[in-house]
């Protein structure tokens, strides 16, 4: 949805935001701190727990994007698998060091804003973004144009 919204808000966003770490748009510039981190997806491996904690430490504001980040589902389907289904996937969980269960992100770090929905609600996202623009000293984007 982000890349769809980009069609309409590219120029307004480019004036107000620096994309520090957005692999879909550019190479990572690791090491920089963030004003705002947007995190999507649920947490399914120990390495992701460490990464999420690091992102939280580097960010002033952390926003959970989409259903998986906000509620865990549907990414957390394996938490409710039957014993037989769990046996089927066990060797993969071991091979790639998955966590015992899938977690939504506020089970691991503090979340400042939630943008739920699958896909995320674009209205909620645009409103939250405008609040953040104001918080960090930028004019809000005119959403009625």
């Amino acid at each position, binding site marked *: *949805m982000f*890349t*769809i919204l*980009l*069609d*309409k808000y*590219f120029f307004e966003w*480019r004036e107000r935001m620096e*994309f520090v770490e957005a*692999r*879909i*748009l*550019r*190479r*990572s510039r690791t090491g920089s701190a963030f004003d705002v981190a947007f995190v999507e997806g649920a947490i*399914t*491996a120990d390495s*992701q727990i460490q990464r999420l904690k690091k992102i939280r430490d580097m960010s002033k504001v952390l926003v959970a994007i989409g259903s998986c980040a906000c509620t865990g589902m*549907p*990414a957390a*389907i*394996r938490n409710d*698998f039957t014993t037989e*289904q769990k046996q*089927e*996937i066990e*060797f*993969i969980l071991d*091979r*790639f060091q*998955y966590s015992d269960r*899938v977690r939504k992100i506020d089970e691991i770090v503090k979340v400042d804003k939630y943008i739920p929905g*699958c*896909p995320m609600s674009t209205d909620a996202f645009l409103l939250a973004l405008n609040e953040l623009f104001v918080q960090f000293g930028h004019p809000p984007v005119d959403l009625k144009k």
Partner: protein
Amino acid sequence: MHDIDFDINLMEISKIEGHAGLQVVVRGGIVQDVQFKIQEYKRFYTQGMTGKKPEILPQFVARICGTCSNAHLLASTEAVEHALGIQITPQAHLLRQLMVNGLMIRDHALHLYIFSLPDLFDLDSLIDFDETDPMQKQFLHDALEVKAVGNDLQVYIAGRSVHALFIAVGGFTQIPTTDPATLISKLQSIRPAVIRLAKLFVEKQTKLNHPTTYVALRGLTGWSFLDGNIITSKKETIKEAAFRQHFDNVVIPYSQATAYTYAGHSYMVGALSRINMNKDQLHPNTRHDLADILELFPSTDIFMNNVAQAIEILHCIDESVDILTKTKFAPEQRVKPTKSDGIGIGVIEAPRGLLFYKVTVSNGTVTDGQVVVPTGQNQINIEKDIGKLVEDNLSSMNQAELEYEIEKLIRAYDPCISCASHFLKVKWDIR
């Protein structure tokens, strides 16, 4: 050259869908190992399909990937319909044709403009495009306009371009009844931008000649992303339902994805395969306006996948304008199931290539599901092409230059890692 030893370790490849890494080992000027690593973690959708009601299955499996969600909807819906003995109406079929066209326009435009175009300008990102440079300004504005029209077409037909709302088992829950005139003129207005894009990629991109086997669906009566037989560049024809008898899964220990071979060899699916074998079926206006570029196909250069995608955008525009101009859509009921048990197969061409679904339904409940996605099918070919690129350029490029060229090559395949990582039929792996 014999004393060249180095290791390439890319932890992250930018500007692709999802998370992948790469390891290349060169010893004595010879590429000893290439590992393209699918790093996304699985969510086990294959297992999760079991126990679901067939009518909700498509919206469930569509969550595998936002970008490709509408492709998963189209293929899984078709599989469920085949399992339940449903034959959709000609109108529903036309609507699905428009839906897949909108998907192709938006998805190819996302890949070509956002992921690959910056490479042609030696820039890292479309964000860095300079509006004071006339050419960069032109392509930046083209990018946003072309992508938006693909989005608009899907919204008009299916309610949303990500996780579409109106497609359902048996047809559609809503039929578009508003005047499509604005949409038609928008579609027509982006044609010059798409032709510009195809020409730019032909002119400026890297080349790599490395033949492989090409595999795609071919429509029985004309171009189709949704129906027909699977054909190969080895001149074989395979019925959709026989897919799994001809294509074998291969377990790759370092990757979260399953790879595939055809007759023991790697193969390629995607726009390049489709244009290589089906260019005669393209819309006449597309064939007319891109005649010179179409002469370059069939091609054995993976970078021509970019050009093939641009050609397909134009075809999807031209075909959609025709359908929207000639058709008056009318409300209709969805077709009801004729049985509650069965095995159904759905095969479509997703933007990145052949997408296969097999659904088994017993007593109105899904008891088994299988999915084969394009990027899994391309995985071995990607590694072979990287090996070839490194060997060809070992003596003329330094390591940083090679890494950049490899990234461009991976982007040319337009891999979708979110999709690739989520299908492993576990029984295949325990040996």
